[in-house]
């Protein structure tokens, strides 16, 4: 919503006295203004979106959904989705406080997505590539059978079509509601990536806020190049679990992208504003070298 709509709504409210007495509903307010988690500044949401969901004041990188990510990363209009219709089933008939299918519906209603990853092909700076973007907003970005299958399929697709592969991770880990089948997705995706790697494919893994558990322990950490977004929290076990287990206070920057860089776990931390250019130059660099060495082999 932008300011014009907001004023229009306010005008409507004034004309209709019954409604005018009520305060502005939270949802409407939140759609207009977003408070920065870090510097507490109130940001006009439309400006924030134009700045690729990065706080213009303190540079805090907000969580970025799959569709936004594609918009910011891929060349305009170049993205074509693959396996768009794939949906989870309920193999365990899982019920906690609510049945798993109900939770799926709820997740889809909130996120507007069918699953926690969107895969497809696009160009980045003119370089064709296969891409998978996870969305934390859908079911905590958790990896069940469908996420595992879609990631595996896009990897196989990249291998068959000799495309570089980019996977943007953002996930709480494996999806408990699909039990052991979720766990097996770690092995399935990793094994597909091994094939892809042996075929000489370039895989760039982008870690975004937050990336944890089974996703980190499989495809997220297997990139030929691993990029992290500033301030993103990345790890295997969550901070609270570790603190409770070892009964120690952890450093404040523990498990942030910068902490990982210092500890040798990622290649680089790249601002969202520069991400597209960096991806394009990485793909171009390896592609040019590839053409050259292929000419050599012949």
């Amino acid at each position, binding site marked *: 919503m932008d300011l014009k709509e907001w004023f229009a709504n306010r005008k409507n409210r004034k004309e209709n006295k019954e409604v005018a007495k009520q305060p502005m509903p939270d949802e409407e307010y939140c759609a207009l203004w977003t408070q920065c988690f870090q510097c507490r500044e109130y940001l006009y949401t439309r400006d924030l979106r134009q700045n690729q969901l990065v706080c213009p004041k303190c540079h805090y990188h907000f969580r970025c959904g799959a569709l936004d990510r594609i918009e910011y990363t891929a060349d305009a209009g170049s993205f074509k989705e693959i396996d768009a219709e794939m949906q989870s089933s309920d193999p365990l008939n899982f019920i906690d406080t609510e049945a798993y299918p109900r939770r799926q519906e709820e997740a889809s209603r909130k996120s507007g997505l069918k699953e926690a990853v969107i895969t497809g092909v696009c160009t980045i700076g003119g370089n064709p590539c296969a891409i998978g973007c996870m969305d934390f907003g859908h079911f905590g970005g958790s990896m069940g059978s469908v996420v595992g299958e879609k990631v595996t399929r896009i990897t196989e697709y990249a291998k068959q079509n000799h495309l570089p592969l980019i996977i943007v991770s953002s996930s709480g880990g494996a999806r408990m509601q699909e039990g052991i089948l979720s766990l097996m997705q770690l092995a399935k995706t990793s094994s597909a990536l091994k094939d892809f790697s042996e075929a*000489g494919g370039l895989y760039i893994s982008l870690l975004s806020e937050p990336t944890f558990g089974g996703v980190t322990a499989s495809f997220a950490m297997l990139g030929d190049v691993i990029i992290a977004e500033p301030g993103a929290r990345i790890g295997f076990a969550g901070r609270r679990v570790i603190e409770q287990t070892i009964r120690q206070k952890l450093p404040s920057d523990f498990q942030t992208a910068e902490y990982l860089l210092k500890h*040798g776990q990622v290649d680089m931390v790249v601002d969202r504003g520069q991400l597209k250019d960096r991806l394009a130059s990485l793909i171009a660099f390896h592609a040019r070298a*590839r053409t*050259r*060495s292929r000419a050599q082999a012949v």
Partner: protein
Amino acid sequence: MATGEKKPIPLEFEQPLAVLAQQIEALEVQLNDNPELEGDLERMQEQYRSLKRSLYTNLRPIDHLAIARHQQRPYTRDYLGHWDPNWIEMHGDRKGMDDAAMVCGLVQMDDLQVIVIGTQKGRAIKEKQQCNFGMPQPEGYRKALRLIKHAEKFGLPIVTLIDTPGAYPGLSAEEHNQAQAIAENLFELSAVTVPVVAAVTGEGGSGGALAIGVANRIIMLEHSVYSVISPEGCASILWRSNDKVSDACQAMKMTAREILNLGVIDEVVEEPLGGAHHDYAGAAANLKQALVKHLKELEDLGQKQGRDAIRRDRQNKFRLFGAHG
């Protein structure tokens, strides 16, 4: 890079030159009031030039060592900045540390895409400490190994820049198996099928240098040194004295030209007069030209005889090293 623009700090053996330069400067100031001094000035400038030439053509090994260790000597990051301002750095060994003493990056050299692996000494005190004064830890060598494998996978040629007193001698380094890290690099680097060219740009300190020095072609900058142990270490072990560093330098035959005569390296790359720290851009350009020339020759070899020929070329080179009666 900023240091490169600064006036070079004179070394001990350069003192006569520095004194002369000061006198010339003083004379230049007076020139405005006394135009008749112009003849003197010209004479002194000529004297300066001839002294400079004779000084740098008759350097003792220990003078080369002093230039190689000069605090303003260009390091890996300086060269990379001159070669490709948009080079992309690759951090970390993926196993727990990012060693600042080892710098790895994706670099465009003329029309070649190259992986550069080099040691970094650090300039300011804080940076020196972060870089451990250019002494890599096992994690640094493992980062290098990761990039060596990356290069092999994507068919990228490797350039290594060596300027290190040696591998870091320390508690954690031993605990994390420094020796194994170096050995594994020798093991893996000997077998890659992409061209590898190593350049000693400053100090080539023993195993710590060789761990990124198993190359098809090894070149050295004019004033750089390469040896099995630091001259200080050698003097204290064999002469049992710290005053014998100059003798040790002489005895070990560690300067670029001496090593070229021993047949270990393939080329000595000229530095700007007085050393690379007098002209960063000039030194970077010379070095790049030599590196690219060797890389292209090796690429030709690969094109004619296949990539395996590049590996055999490297292994044969090292097979032949040694002297026996």
